[in-house]
């Protein structure tokens, strides 16, 4: 099942989409994503750690550094994903240099061969996305585009027309990380995007609690939860504890 159809199925059933993020290579990460999937995720975003993650805040930076120090590489992560038992659509999130170095066509073929159906590249904006998207489209990989509050309506329209899988609405001006309260910009960008596209619109960046997820989903189709999940993994080192956190988000989004 593609990521888009997985998310659309949840939406069609009247639910809200939950896509947790975890840094690949971080401790018991394969068991953790299995626990996260079992806890009610609609899709999973697995980070392939990069040495210079400019879109990430301190929590994901720390996880990336730790994963790299323990020897994680793009092939080792894809290899583990190909053998993981998750049962939900998989996306990888990484930075463009790792993809460029490997070769766009080879990387998209390797994703497909590993059972990964989508990719998120936060430092590859629309203007530079052509060569990658061509390779990804050809391999059947959905390229999720980020849409930011700073964009004009005209730009948002062009971004969503290139988006596959879902549209990743950047909830605030800033890098990944938890915030005390939901930014006003989160619902605004979600509403602007909902006016432009039928693709699922998920808000990420700054969604750290089930309450914030519920609040933004008054407008959005779902959420991406990254730093809160990774922080739980870093603090507890327990796949079950991370699964419990994701279950709290699931319950809240289901109206419980």
């Amino acid at each position, binding site marked *: 099942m593609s990521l888009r159809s997985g998310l659309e199925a949840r939406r069609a059933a009247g639910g809200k989409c939950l896509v947790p993020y975890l840094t690949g290579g971080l401790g018991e990460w394969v068991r953790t994503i299995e626990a996260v999937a079992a806890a009610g995720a609609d899709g999973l975003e697995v980070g392939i750690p990069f040495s210079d993650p400019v879109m990430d805040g301190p929590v994901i930076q720390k996880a990336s*550094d730790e994963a790299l120090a323990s020897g994680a590489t793009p092939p080792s992560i894809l290899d583990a994903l190909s053998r993981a038992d998750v049962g939900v659509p998989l996306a990888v999130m990484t930075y463009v240099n790792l993809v460029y170095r490997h070769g766009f066509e080879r990387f998209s073929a390797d994703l497909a061969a590993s059972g990964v159906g989508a990719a998120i590249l936060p430092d590859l904006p629309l203007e530079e996305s052509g060569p990658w998207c061509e390779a990804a489209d050809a391999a059947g990989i959905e390229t999720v585009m980020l849409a930011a509050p700073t964009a004009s309506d005209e730009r948002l329209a062009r971004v969503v027309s290139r988006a596959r899988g879902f549209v990743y609405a950047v909830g605030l001006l800033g890098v990944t990380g938890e915030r005390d309260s939901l930014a006003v910009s989160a619902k605004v960008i979600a509403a602007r995007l909902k006016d432009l596209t039928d693709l699922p619109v998920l808000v990420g960046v700054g969604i750290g609690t089930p309450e914030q997820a519920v609040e933004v989903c008054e407008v959005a189709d779902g959420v991406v939860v990254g730093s809160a999940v990774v922080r739980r993994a870093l603090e507890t080192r327990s796949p079950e504890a991370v699964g419990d956190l994701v279950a709290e988000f699931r319950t809240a989004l289901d109206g419980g």
Partner: protein
Amino acid sequence: MDDPGERGRFGEFGGQYVPETLMPALQELEAAFREAWVDPGFRGELDALLADYAGRPSPMTECHRLGEELGCRVLLKREDLNHTGSHKINNVLGQALLAKRMGKTRLVAETGAGQHGVATATAAALMGLDCMVYMGEVDMARQELNVFRMRLLGADVVPAVSGSRTLKDAVNEAMRDWVATVESSHYCLGSVMGPHPYPWMVREFHRVLGDEARAQSERLLEGGLPDVVVACVGGGSNAIGIFSGFAEDHAVDLVGVEPAGGAAVGHGVPGIVHGMQSYLMQDEFGQVLEAESVSAGLDYPGVGPEHSHLAQTGRARYEQVTDSEVIDAFRLLSRTEGIIPALEPAHALAWVSRERRQLAGLTVLINLSGRGDKDVAQMMDILADEL
């Protein structure tokens, strides 16, 4: 040296690889720069600041004693004599004026050796802007004096504590700051690197030093030009500045000198980081390697995209020198000419000194991009047993 167009490409290099949040800001910046750069009002204001505040034009000095020792004619472009002690002020005054014109109230900058940070803090003080400078924790320790100067000038200096804790990581932190503050802040990037329009805009702000150097060479050499123009290259702004004066003079050999431990052109392969496609020191998977140089200002695993293009087309060549050659050159210029260079341009001197045989009888112009005051404490440790 051409306008790289709206996509910001120098041949295959350059581009705009940044988070989506920043794309509108880059487009706004490009439009503002294009407009300002042809506005006589803006140019007049900048020229006046460069003359009356920064002290331009900087002189050209012929080094007779050094020339005698090396067996070639040596000219120095004296960017060390600018206000704040390096060429960095040219770019910073331009960007700060542009930031004000765009209605921004805060400057964000990265710095390696602290020269760009000091220049940015200076321009911010002059123009009444807030200023935040990110600096690698390692660099803050080895360039303590510049950290204090920036704070004295009213800037906040924040350590970059991730990765190698040097210039590369300071750029990451500055970009993260800008992603969060893009509406009120201007990212005052300090070299000819990063996403378009920076490599081009920063080159244009440094073109003044190349134009001056060409005119000064013609006067000094009675209509002639130097045979070789040499500059150090980290990100590559001082080199682009001086190369821009001579790029069309095809008989002039352009040489960029990289530190052996941070040679993006020499040891790198094309990659994408910090918003640009360019040569990059990286491992087989694309993880960026940590540079290692005695000079904090050149301690960077990447290089500006136009240098990658100049290297690929062969218009400029790129050479490497070791830390110990640099330290010798630092001492050589001090002893023979009474000029203490910064460790960065000491790389250019080191190459000239090492290659004196192939340069015999030629006229060599070196861009002395900064003065060595900031490096004296570090050199006291390195040379403790010898002096």
